[in-house]
Structure formats: C-alpha cells, structure tokens
C-alpha cells in the first residue's frame, strides 16, 4: 500500500465530510494561527526596536544620573527621579572631558544635549516648525549624522555660545531656497516661550522620517507643518533655557571594535568616583548592546509563553483529531473488515488511518499558517511596523502538526488495525 494511494484515500474521505473535517481542524488552525500571528508581530516589534537602536548607534553607552539607594527608596522602590538633581549633582563637561582624555583608545566622543523645545523660523510669510536641541560636536558621532552642506557645531561655537543653527533641507524648501543658498542666512526663530532669536545657518542636513518619529506618530498632516530637528550649540541652549550648567544624561560614543558592554563598566567606575561623596546621586550606565540583548531576552520569554499556550491548544486540537478518527473508524468498520478480508495486513490499515490523521493536521496547519500570516500582517500594520513572517515558525508549525497527527492518529489507527475481520465484516 503506497503513500500516494493513502493520501488519495484520506483526501477523498475528508472531502466526503467537509464540514466535519473543517471543524476538526479548527483546533489546529487556531493553535498554529495564533503562534504564527504572535510570532510575526513579535518579530516585527523586535525588528523595529533593533533598527531604531541601530539608528541611535549600537555602540553607544548612555550615562545618566540615578538616585542612590537609601532608607527612603527602599521603602518605596521607585528609584528614578525621586529627587531633582541640583547643579552640584549634575555631570559636568569637565567630568566627560576627563573621561575622554583617560580613555582615548576606547572612546570616540561624547554627546550631550539640552532640549530647547519647539520653535518657528519665519521668513516673511514662509515658516518652518523646528524642534530645537542644544548639542555638542559629539552628537555627530553618536547619531551617524551627515550634512548635505556646511558644517556642524564645533568646539569654538560651544566656547563662545554663538547663535548658530543646523537645520534640515525642509526648512530651505519651506523658504523657497536651496540648502546652499540657506547657508550663512540669518534665521529669525520664535521660541516657545515667545523669545525671538536670530541664528546664522551653518549647516543643512537631509530630513528623513525616522522609525522613531513614525513610532511616535510625529508625522504631521502637511509637509509645511512637519516639525524637523534643528541643532544649536549646547552652551547657547543653556543660556536660552536658563538651565544649570551640567547634564543629567550623556551619550558616550565607543570606538569601533571596542566591546561596549565591557567599556560600559569602566565608564561606570570612572564616573562614580565623582559621586563617591554625593549623598543622593550616582551614575548609571546602559549600553545599547545590553539593551538589545535585554530586548532579545524579553522576546524570548514571550515566545516561550506563546509556545506553551500554542502547545496546549495544539494538544486540544490533537485530541479533537483523535476523537474524529475514532468516529470515522467506527463508521468504517465494515470497510476495514473488507480490506482485511482482501488481505490488507494490520500495518496497511494502521498506516492508512495515520496518514488520514496527519493529512487533517497538515491541512489544518497550512490553514493555520495562512490565518497566522494574515493576522500577523494586520497586527503589524496596525502597530505601524513592517510584517516579518517567520519562516522558522512556519516550518516548525507544519512539522509540529504532522507530529500531532502521528501522535494522536496512532491510537485510533492501531485500534482499527487490530479489529477482528469477522466482527468487522458483520458490523452493521
């Protein structure tokens, strides 16, 4: 009895009971569909997360202030920003410069920012919405930043606190000019507090809607209104905001080839020397690498949970298949008796029904994959990420449903194989 014949038989017996076959498959369809759907959405999330991380620079180490543990924080273990750091607590440029000088081999630059907030550049009737950040030259290294024309903010801009600005080509577009013509122009910027400042444009970079802005829903209705990033020297920014001289957070850019996870602990030790005697604050350090691996661990845990749920639903589905196979065998007792009378060995009967169970499960599995891929695509597009159907999950799903078919088909098939031909032939 060859396999092709068995498959043909199984299909014809399934077609004879379409509704029953479909209902039987439902458990498998739902189980496999749920796994593929969730895995697809999960993969898309991971993909979006890692690509955002890559945008931010994988090798970067983020340094920030963290409240020291004391009696108060132990009672209420919400450690972050219980107290506001004062000027004495903040990280200074001196500290970071010192770090840079101590580890020139490992460290490329550091980046500090001071958010100024939104502003509007006006040129007659034309305007462009800006989101202004004060930065230092290290920002370029921390963010893979590339200019279309002009230059970025340098040390001398920082030292003198010049009113210079780097804007996007969208600003040039909004002012009906080219990026090159925009260079050296004075831009009249109204800040959100009403303060009006003149800035000289020193550089223009290309605007692109990043994954991050897309994620935050930062795409405005019209191109004209789109808010784009603008950069001014961090010292100028401090003057405008009246902020304390120092930073709560900084990004350390690690040189290529340096293990950022290891260097992170070096940075941690180095900076905490400055905070030895600080009663409230210490430094904490996060490397992007470790965040990505943290995300990976998290997704792994979620995947495991999904796998367990799917496993349970597949077992339930498998029991459904077993049940329907038992019904089918009872219905076909005479057929089994006839086959035995015609000389079918027990093994042929057993294989026939196992193949039937496997076919039910594989068809269920395939329908489940289709359902899952559709669900995943819909889910991912609702979240605004590209859908990444997992090939591994699909292959696993088909294999697993075949295994379920064999496992839950074996008992009924064996029961059929062991029927007494005389009894079976006499069965009404």
């Amino acid at each position, binding site marked *: *009895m060859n396999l092709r014949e068995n498959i043909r038989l199984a299909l014809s017996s399934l077609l004879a009971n379409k509704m029953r076959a479909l209902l039987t498959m439902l458990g498998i369809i739902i189980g496999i569909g749920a796994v593929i759907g969730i895995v697809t959405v999960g993969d898309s999330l991971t993909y979006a997360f890692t690509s955002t991380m890559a945008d931010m620079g994988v090798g970067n180490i983020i340094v920030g202030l963290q409240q020291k543990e004391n009696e108060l924080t132990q009672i209420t273990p919400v450690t972050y920003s219980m107290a506001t750091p004062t000027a004495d607590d903040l990280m200074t440029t001196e500290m970071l410069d010192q770090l840079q000088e101590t580890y020139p081999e490992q460290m490329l630059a550091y980046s500090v920012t001071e958010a100024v907030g939104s502003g509007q550049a006006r040129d007659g009737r034309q305007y462009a919405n800006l989101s202004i950040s004060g930065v230092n030259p290290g920002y370029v290294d921390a963010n893979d930043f590339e200019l279309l024309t002009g230059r970025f903010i340098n040390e001398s801009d920082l030292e003198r606190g010049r009113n210079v600005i780097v804007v996007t080509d969208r600003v040039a577009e909004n002012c009906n000019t080219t990026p090159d013509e925009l260079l050296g122009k004075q831009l009249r910027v109204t800040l959100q507090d009403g303060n009006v400042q003149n800035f000289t444009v020193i550089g223009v970079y290309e605007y692109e809607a990043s994954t991050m802005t897309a994620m935050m829903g930062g795409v405005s209705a019209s191109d004209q209104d789109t808010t784009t990033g603008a950069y001014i020297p961090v010292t100028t920014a401090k003057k405008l905001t009246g902020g304390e001289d120092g930073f709560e957070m900084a990004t350390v850019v690690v040189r290529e080839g340096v293990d950022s996870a290891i260097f992170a602990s070096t940075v941690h030790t180095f900076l905490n020397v400055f905070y030895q005697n600080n009663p409230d604050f210490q430094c904490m350090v996060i490397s992007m690498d470790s965040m990505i691996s943290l995300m990976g661990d998290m997704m792994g845990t979620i995947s495991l949970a999904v796998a367990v749920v799917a496993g349970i639903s597949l077992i339930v589905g498998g029991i459904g298949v077993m049940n329907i196979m038992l019904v089918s065998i009872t219905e076909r007792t005479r057929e089994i008796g006839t086959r035995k009378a015609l000389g079918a060995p027990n093994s042929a009967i057993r294989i026939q029904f196992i193949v039937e169970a496997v076919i039910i499960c594989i068809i269920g599995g395939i329908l489940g994959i289709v359902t899952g891929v559709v669900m995943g695509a819909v889910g991912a597009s609702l979240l605004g990420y590209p859908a990444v159907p997992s090939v591994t999950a699909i292959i696993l799903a088909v294999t697993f449903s075949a295994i379920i078919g064999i496992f839950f088909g074996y008992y009924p098939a064996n029961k059929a194989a062991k029927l007494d031909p005389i009894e079976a032939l006499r069965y009404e």
Partner: protein
Amino acid sequence: MSEYIIDMQDIVKKFFIGEPNELTVLKGLTIQVPEHQFVAVVGESGSGKSTLMNIIGALDRPTSGSYTLDGVDIARASDSELSHIRNQKVGFVFQNFNLIPRTSALKNVELPMLYAGVSPRRRTERAKALLEMVGMGERMKHMPNELSGGQKQRVAIARALANDPAILLADEPTGALDSETGRLVMDLFHRLHDEQGKTIVLITHNDQLAEETERLIRISDGAIVDDVMKVAAS
C-alpha cells in the same frame, strides 16, 4: 502436498473456551475439495455455516483439526500470515458486495493487488481486463453508489479474481439481488468454473442454487449431514 485445494481434517471450532457458556460450533468436519470443483455448502442459519466459511476463507483458525489451503497450513498460521493467505489464495464475494465507498470500480478491483504489492501499471491493466470480463468495462470509473446491485456484485467478483486466487469463496452472492440479476451472477460463476476452471465454494441456504453445483455439502448443527456428488453437472 495434498492433492486437494481444500483439505480439512476433523475441524473443531469452539467459542468461549473455558467459560461456562462454552460453545462447540463445528464438531469435527472433514471436507476435501479437489481443484476445479464447484461446491455448495448449505445449511440453516445457526448450523455453523458461517463459522465454516470463516475458516475456509482463512479469516479464522480452527480450535483443533488440520486445514491446508492450496498446500498452506492454515491452522498454525499467524495473523499476518493469514492476511497474506487471504490476499493470495482466497477471493471473497460477499452477500452485500462490500465495495469500498467513494472508490471507483477500477480502484476497488485494484485493491487486492495493491496489498500484494503489484506495480500500479500492471494493477490497472489487470483490473481493466477483469472488469471487461465481467461486463463492467463501461463503468470502470463509476463509484459504488452509482452502480446497481448486480453491477456491484460483478465488480466484487472481478475484485475477488484480482490475485488469481486458489478458491472463490462466495457467501450468499445472490442474497441481496432480485432473481433476475441473481441469475446473471450465478451464470457468471458457472462461466468462471466452466471456462477458467475456477474452484468455487458457494455458501447458501438456497437449495435451488445449490442444486446447480457439482457437489452439495449440507451442514446441520455443526456436522455434515449430507455430501452428494452430482454426476455430469456441467
């Protein structure tokens, strides 16, 4: 090697052995059927006729006694050996046809050859030839539910002949048919006997049909009460 196709010596069949309701259905039957013989086994229901048929057809083993079918010892064969013997030596024709549903006439006839491991091409060739022979050449692709009773039984006979068995074992083959189609089926058996020299065992309670055969074995209460050879039956 026996000169008989069916050689049964002192066959006893008991059920519920060792239990209080132990039942002896066959009480020491000795039957020998030479090649090319057309035998009828008749008996009332409850006479042990069906049990005898199961043993002749290698569906069951006797409790004691010896039975060789075409030189093969049945009494001591294992289950899987019995499957093989049924496949190769016995062609069953049932009262209610027992065609496999949702499977074409052609595929039904191919089935015993499928279990025998005959190649697909040879299977189909032989099945077609057999269906032509029983006059079903026009309906090879039909499903059993598209055939009349007489047509089904002809397909079943073609299927019984598939592996060229030593005996054709027909259990009330006309029992579910009207007298006209029953006649056609009986004619087919006679043709197979006369033209191809088939050894045929016909189990029936119909004396009229039994009279048509060469030999009549009458069973009552698990024993042979009559074994008549008719002279010049053909």
